[in-house]
């Protein structure tokens, strides 16, 4: 009877479930169910499970908002935080950064674009000129704790490879001074939007725009209460949750996160009124670490390009850094969370380069 039992069981399972159809709009149902659960949790006081940082945000960022708004912000922030924690460095992030800069450099608007990828300690960055031609392509791969930096200069048609260079910038160092501590959120200084590219991270300048660095700074920003939910908007035709910096921030920062993954899909940073007008838009794509995606981290050497020594390529490449990508003048505050940020605007471990110093 054993075979009979198996066959009968198989047929029985088929019959038992034959009429079942998954409800239409399953994902919508799930979203509704989640909202109901969160609402219930909020009502029953289970919201105490929210992180202290999220609570701080609720108190600090939107003191006059209705209760529902506070819960919404805290919940979104918590999810964004955990999504970023899970994604970095487990996923490859690809980021396209467009920088518009005006007034600072003679009133003209310069637009540059960079494409960046990062995955763990590996990264790659391609910088394009305004017409869209690659200026330089650089990246760092790591094996056995040794990083190998590759730089290709498209203008001079040269390339170099150097061991021991190209480590991405470490997470932002926290200032020793307690002046920047915001309502108990120590690393508030690190919550600065770090889209501003300082150029050529492999050459010793902070890799401020690498996706992994941005993910870290955003994680800190959401934990430190510098952002609050401002509804939903469509980004490239797809609905996204919008988070904005506080109105009294020195610069305006807006982040859109995917409601399904809670990972940022777009970040826009704009200087405060009265400051040099700089706006950066970063579109972020989170990619699984498949072989094809990992291959994007490799810097290709175009055929016919000449191999040169590192010093030989360094100077001409530095000269090519577009003005908009150079460090900002001292006093331009990048930290919306910190009101008295003068003097720590460049507390990123390296002093700022003099404006135009390499031009």
């Amino acid at each position: 009877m054993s075979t009979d039992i198996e066959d009968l069981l198989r047929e029985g399972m088929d019959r038992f479930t034959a009429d079942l159809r998954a409800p239409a709009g399953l994902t919508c149902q799930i979203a509704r169910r989640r909202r109901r659960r969160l609402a219930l949790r909020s009502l029953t006081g289970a919201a105490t499970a929210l992180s202290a940082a999220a609570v701080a945000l609720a108190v600090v960022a939107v003191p006059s908002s209705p209760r529902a708004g506070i819960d919404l912000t805290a919940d979104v922030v918590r999810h964004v935080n955990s999504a970023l924690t899970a994604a970095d460095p487990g996923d490859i992030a690809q980021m396209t950064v467009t920088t518009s800069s005006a007034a600072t450099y003679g009133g003209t608007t310069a637009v540059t674009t960079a494409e960046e990828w990062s995955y763990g300690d590996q990264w790659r960055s391609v910088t394009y000129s305004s017409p869209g031609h690659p200026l330089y392509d650089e990246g760092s791969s790591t094996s056995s704790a040794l990083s190998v930096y590759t730089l290709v200069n498209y203008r001079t048609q040269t390339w170099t490879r150097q061991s021991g260079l190209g480590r991405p910038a470490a997470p932002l160092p926290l200032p020793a001074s307690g002046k920047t501590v915001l309502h108990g959120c120590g690393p508030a200084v690190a919550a600065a939007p770090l889209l501003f590219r300082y150029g050529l991270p492999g050459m010793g300048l902070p890799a401020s725009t690498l996706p992994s660095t941005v993910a870290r700074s955003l994680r800190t920003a959401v934990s430190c209460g510098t952002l609050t939910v401002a509804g939903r908007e469509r980004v490239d035709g797809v609905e996204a949750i919008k988070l904005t910096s506080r109105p009294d921030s020195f610069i305006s920062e807006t982040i859109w996160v995917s409601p399904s993954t809670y990972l940022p899909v777009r970040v826009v940073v704009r200087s405060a009124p009265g400051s040099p007008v700089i706006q950066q838009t970063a579109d972020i794509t989170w990619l699984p670490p498949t072989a094809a995606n990992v291959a994007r981290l490799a810097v290709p050497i175009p055929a016919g390009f000449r191999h040169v020594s590192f010093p030989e390529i360094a100077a001409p490449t530095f000269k090519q850094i577009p003005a908009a990508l150079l460090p900002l003048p001292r006093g331009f505050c990048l930290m919306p969370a910190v009101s008295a940020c003068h003097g720590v605007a460049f507390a990123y471990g390296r002093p700022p380069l003099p404006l135009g110093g390499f031009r």
Partner: protein
Amino acid sequence: MAADRSTAELERFLAERADHLLRTAVLLAGNREAGEDLLQTAVERLLRRWGRIDGDPEGYVRRTLCNLAIDGYRRAGRWRQKERLLRTELRQPQDATGDVDLRDALVRLLLQLPARQRTVLVLRYWEQLTDAEAAAVLGCSEGTVKSSGSRGLARLRELADGWTDTAAMSGRNGKRS
């Protein structure tokens, strides 16, 4: 936005496979309501990880369903309550009207099995996975799958003892309830 493109892919995946996954969930959970609940929880987890899943999303959902079914019943002890209720129902195997098919009875008997044995049988005979594939889903050894499946089938036979061979054969010959 890859994440959002992925959402469209997720919708497509669910449109194609949600019916089958719901049937699996119902078999694991024992009834439609619990099955839908199980599937929603599994898909919610899928949603959270969608952008990062490299490979077969159905495999991920199936694995999640199985783990939820085993862990959930183990933790909540709900299975014990259900088992008692089902035993009450099935204590009279000789259906008075004679129109209960052994197939249906076997499925109800299946729901009396411990969660792991039930899950193994669902994977083997509903999902039609091999022992090795079922072991991969459950994160255990092939030997564990074989022994759980064997114990589950043995228990089904034991529970089905109340059903006469006549009833079984009449069911096999096409009599439907």
